[in-house]
């Protein structure tokens, strides 16, 4: 598959203060591929999404690195990117109907108007699993549940015919039953449209289900990236391993309670010298307290930023 996106040493700073929200993030994504981004809250997952979607919050700026598209040669066009978020109800404008919301997007992206736009909006709503699409076009977001609004957001994203869908914690606010429905919908849509997907979640189960490759973030850095089965079954970075061990098991035969990670995530303005994980890491020694380890390959397509990676 051709390369869709390459992120190289991306740095996002809070200007004026010496705080790097993203501190050298690198990864790539091929057309049609799914990347899963995991990590504890505050590690920079959303900020990575915003940077790629070219919608960093006001006041924050890209201070280094590059985001390039396609083969990377100048002249490569920016692919169409759509985004969905954790809290669909508050990202929808309460004063507009669902129909208005979809039809304006269809005009913007496909120049559809009038009856054509209306018909396409209905088709999209039906596609994302909303029945009685015709009557729902006149509904307002507050009349819908969180799960229904997330479907509307997905329909809105589809209106752009994206080559890349960025889904930032799309199921975190939903019940597991609705999560299972949305995950299946995303799987179907990926197969139908061939779009690439970047899925952010703090739930490794969601990542295991959807992602082809996964990246684990810690304090604004990517500390491990690998094919998803490697990350889940054979994590190499001590933090990735710890994250997996603190997922409570649901398997009736496995009675091991979740294993906590000691301590807490350091603040971005008070990062430890060396590897940011060193205060919590059982393997930390020597070099770990001096310099942050570079992201280096340990196997094919498997990169780890650690001086003492766990052996495969």
């Amino acid at each position, binding site marked *: 598959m051709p390369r869709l996106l390459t992120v190289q040493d991306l740095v996002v700073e809070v200007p004026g203060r010496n705080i790097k929200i993203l501190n050298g993030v690198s990864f790539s994504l091929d057309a049609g591929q799914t990347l899963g981004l995991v990590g504890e809250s505050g590690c920079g997952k959303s900020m990575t999404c915003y940077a790629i979607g070219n919608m960093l919050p006001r006041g924050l700026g890209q201070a280094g690195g590059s985001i390039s598209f396609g083969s990377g040669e100048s002249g490569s066009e920016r692919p169409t990117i759509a985004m969905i978020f954790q809290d669909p109800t508050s990202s929808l404008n309460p004063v507009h109907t669902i129909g208005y919301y979809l039809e304006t997007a269809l005009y913007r992206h496909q120049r559809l108007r009038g009856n054509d736009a209306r018909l396409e909006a209905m088709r999209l709503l039906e596609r994302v699993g909303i029945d009685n699409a015709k009557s729902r076009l006149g509904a307002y977001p507050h009349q819908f549940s969180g799960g229904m609004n997330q479907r509307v957001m997905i329909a809105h994203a589809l209106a752009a015919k994206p080559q890349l869908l960025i889904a930032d914690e799309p199921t975190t606010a939903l019940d597991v039953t609705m999560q299972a429905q949305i995950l299946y919908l995303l799987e179907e849509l990926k*197969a139908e449209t061939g779009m690439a997907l970047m899925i952010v979640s703090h739930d490794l189960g969601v990542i295991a289900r959807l992602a082809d490759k996964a990246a684990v973030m810690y304090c604004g850095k990517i500390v491990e990236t690998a094919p*998803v089965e490697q990350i889940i079954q054979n994590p190499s970075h001590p933090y990735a391993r710890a994250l997996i061990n603190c997922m409570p098991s649901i398997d009736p035969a496995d009675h091991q309670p*979740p294993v*906590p*990670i000691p301590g807490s995530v350091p603040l971005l303005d008070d990062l430890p010298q060396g590897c940011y994980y060193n205060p919590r890491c059982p393997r930390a020694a020597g070099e770990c307290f001096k310099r942050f380890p570079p992201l280096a390959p340990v196997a094919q397509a498997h990169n780890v930023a650690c001086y003492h990676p766990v052996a495969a």
Partner: protein
Amino acid sequence: MSAPLLETRNLTKAFGQKTGWLAKPKILCASSSIDLQLNARERLGIVGESGSGKSTLGRLILGLTPPTEGEIFFEGVNHKARSLQGWKQFRVRTSLVQQNPLSALNPQMTIGEQISEGLLVHHFASRAASYERAAAMLDQVGLSSAMMSRYPHQMSGGQRQRVVIARALILDPKLVVFDEAVSALDVSVQAQVVALLRDLWQQRDLAYVFITHDLRVVRHVVDRIAVMYLGRVVETGDIKSVYEWPRHPYTRALLASVPSMDPTIRNIQPPINGELDPGKIAGGCPFRPRCPFAIERCGTEAPLLRDVAGQRVACHRAEEFPRSVQMGKEVA
């Protein structure tokens, strides 16, 4: 046999909902006909989709909202027969921990003041002694006593949740209701709180009700579980047996919806569609509109909770489902 610590009989709470201007209020049952028993030191989990009535049940148990019908007994005493003094004693012997630790804490009081407040209010200790006990309590929840003089905004989310737990346990209650107490926390912090809860329970004469929509966590902190759907308990039993062999289609669907950690399990149709809709309560089984196994009888006759192999299950077809639910895969 001594009386259970907590018992509810035929507990029902109905909320009136006005559907429009001058419309007759429609009755929504947040919980109906719930019979629960909890012994001293027992740990009960309550799960179900949001809106299934879990929080309402928790508030009913703690006497924070009156039932529409039915009775609640705590240490053998009916809530309805409790005097003012009796309620005071009840408040000392029970407590509630909720989801958002920041809003549960007073931003203008130090951590030490908030934890010791209960002791002072109930005149259980002098100021100096209560401060000392608060510091000891902080130590038990794994925080340094240096935190005593801090304010809530100076702590991380996980630390705040520990403070809330310390405050809930300072009077040594016999029963605590945890309502989504770990739901908003990161998995790493969640695992810390789970370990803490297991430790504290070991050391104390404590029973609790652990309300959550998280089917992964609950399994590691309770002895028994009750699954709620539209205000009813549809299955209850020993946590181990329910997870090994869930008998109600709803329990099975909930468990099968949890994404597996096995990356080869993909493209799995959701076990059930739609969502919980209180407007759809009709005759028959409340789960029928979403149940993949509904038969004619389910539309006419409401299933009652009955014994099925040591569990209590409200489904006409409870005996028919195979042992294992494949996590992340479709049911049956």
